[in-house]
């Protein structure tokens, strides 16, 4: 079982130094990504999901951001203690990342081909310089780029949003990563292009068995792509379960709210949508108690004064499932 795990995050906390002292934005987060599986990290802006991903790549803004506790084990090694040379090999090599807005992540003054080739020059030294061009073309074919011979010579501004995202994915694949971190890669795209990109990521994963950490706020995308789901709220993990359980029987009131507040394709048009009242607190105002209590319909005096732990939740009447369903809520099972 253990060797299937590619990445294990153990009790990671991240804090930023501000002029008003340190501010903890990620609190004691743990999860594991397995080979050939997709874990979705879900939450709204400011919940700490992108910061968690950045800490895996050790890309927290310096010198303000640091991992204050915990370990990040990738293929048996703690990423946090690796020397810089090894980190260079890791970034873009064994772990690749794609971002939300490919226009800002790509270099505007280099062609698409040159940017993919750069990755080969850094991480695929076995390929001779002369053999790089055909390899770039081959990778572009893998990401199903339309007319790749032409696109190789194009600059990012000459490409459509979907094509840019394909170039990003091509750059990520060029290093033959074991783990792909995708930070909202389809948020800026049209639904048709989104469907193409999600399909592409699934296909590539099936072929080369990479693990995918998929960060998103969109529960629809979660349902389409993930195997496991980790829901974050205000810097903490509030629920962990398989994608089936998350949608069939969400337990945490926040997860339930997220799923219910999306307009469904079979809901009554123009009816009132269930919504979560209030707004996400700022990291400076995270309460010591349950962080969701002030927006929760079920909160009582106990919730406002005490902090719940992330605990295994066994649904009543259901034989204990293969995968634990973790929930951070006092009311789990009673609501």
């Amino acid at each position, binding site marked *: 079982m253990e060797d299937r795990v590619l990445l294990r995050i153990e009790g990671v906390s991240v804090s930023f130094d501000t002029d008003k002292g340190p501010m903890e934005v990620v609190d004691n987060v743990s999860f594991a990504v397995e080979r050939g599986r997709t874990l979705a990290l879900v939450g*709204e*802006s400011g919940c700490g999901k992108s910061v968690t991903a950045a800490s895996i790549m050790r890309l927290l803004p310096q010198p303000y951001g640091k991992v204050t506790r915990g370990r990040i084990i990738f293929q048996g090694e703690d990423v946090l203690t690796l020397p810089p040379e090894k980190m260079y090999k890791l970034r873009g090599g064994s772990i690749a990342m794609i971002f939300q807005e490919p226009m800002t992540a790509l270099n505007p003054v280099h062609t698409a081909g040159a940017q993919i080739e750069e990755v080969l020059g850094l991480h695929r030294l076995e390929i001779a310089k002369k053999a790089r061009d055909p390899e770039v073309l081959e990778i572009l074919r893998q990401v*199903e780029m*339309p007319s790749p011979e032409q696109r190789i010579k194009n600059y990012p501004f000459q490409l*459509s*949003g*979907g*094509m840019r995202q394909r170039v990003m994915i091509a750059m990520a694949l060029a290093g033959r990563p074991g783990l792909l971190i995708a930070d909202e890669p389809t948020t800026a795209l*049209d*639904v*048709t*292009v*989104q*469907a*193409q990109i*999600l*399909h592409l990521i699934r296909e590539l994963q099936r072929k080369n068995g990479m693990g995918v950490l998929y960060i998103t*706020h*969109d*529960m*629809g*995308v979660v*349902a*389409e792509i*993930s195997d496991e789901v980790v829901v974050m709220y205000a810097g903490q993990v509030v629920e962990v379960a398989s*994608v*089936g359980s998350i*949608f069939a029987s969400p337990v945490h009131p926040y997860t339930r*709210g*997220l*799923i219910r*507040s*999306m*307009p*469904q*394709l079979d*809901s009554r*048009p*123009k*009816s*009132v*949508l*269930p*919504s*979560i*009242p209030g*707004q*996400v607190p700022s990291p400076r105002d995270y309460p010591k108690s349950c962080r969701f209590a002030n927006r929760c319909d079920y909160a009582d005096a106990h919730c406002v004064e005490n902090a719940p732990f992330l605990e295994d939740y066994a649904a009543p009447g259901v034989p204990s499932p293969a995968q634990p369903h973790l929930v951070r809520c006092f009311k789990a099972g009673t609501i």
Partner: protein
Amino acid sequence: MKNDDGAIVEARGLVQHFAQGRFAGRKVVHALNGVDIAVRKGETLGLVGETGCGKSTLCRALMRLYKPTAGQVVFEGRDITKLRERDLRFVRKSMQMIFQDPADSMNPRLNVGYILEEPLLIQTDLNPGRRRERAMSLLADVGLPEDSYFRYPHEFSGGQRQRIAIARSLALEPKVVVCDEPVSALDVSVQSQVLNLLLELQKEHSLTMIFVSHALSVVRHMSDRVAVMYLGSIMELADSRTIYEGPRHPYTQALIAAIPKTDPSRRAERIPFTGEIPSPIDLPPGCPFHLNCTQKIEICHRQKPSLREISPGHLCACHLVD
């Protein structure tokens, strides 16, 4: 120029071109290519389509923010296509807009009170006391506390800022509110709050709304009828249930199939449609969609299909559908 089907604002054969570049490099962007659409009084008309299909251009053209290249814009039965800016003031008052990013659509140096009163200052002769009263009642309408009046946009969260933008759009008691991606910049849990507010205000003020979004399930939820656009043309128009449950146009079918399903057990291993959208600078001849259409026949290469009624209230522009 009489219309009796209850249309409040209408486009008739509307063509909107924009020039790009100069001299020898001059190109024409064909943003709208003969759009016929009537927005009915009191309804919400949803506009969907991919980036660059002309949904925002259509909204702006209906508000007469552009000078149309050809065709007509008709507001409450009156042809406003050729009106000068001075004569358009009544249109400006009657049609208001809510934009995607409320932070970009408000002057950061003005307090909320001024932001809400500015339209009144321009369009009405209310005295300062009355204006302030009106601003306060607008704040109450959108669920913001009274002290917001003295605060500045940066002091609010995204959802609250969108509430301010909504309050501003209602200041002149408009008849039509155009919402261009009003919740796309908001967090999921706040999105539904704002959508509920829009639905509530529409009922209260009997507003006509034009609702644009690339989030198809949001448009379905908000709209009475939905128009599907592609490359500056309307491909299909019907009530929102029909569009989502029984789409007839191959493009609409592809679009609807691409919506992520919220049920992981129904996750389909479908192959999504793969084409790139042609450039609006070099429009393809024939049907705008034929290059990406899996069902195209010979005539689709030559002739652009017209938007025809295929069943009561259901319009479709496709040679294959009768």
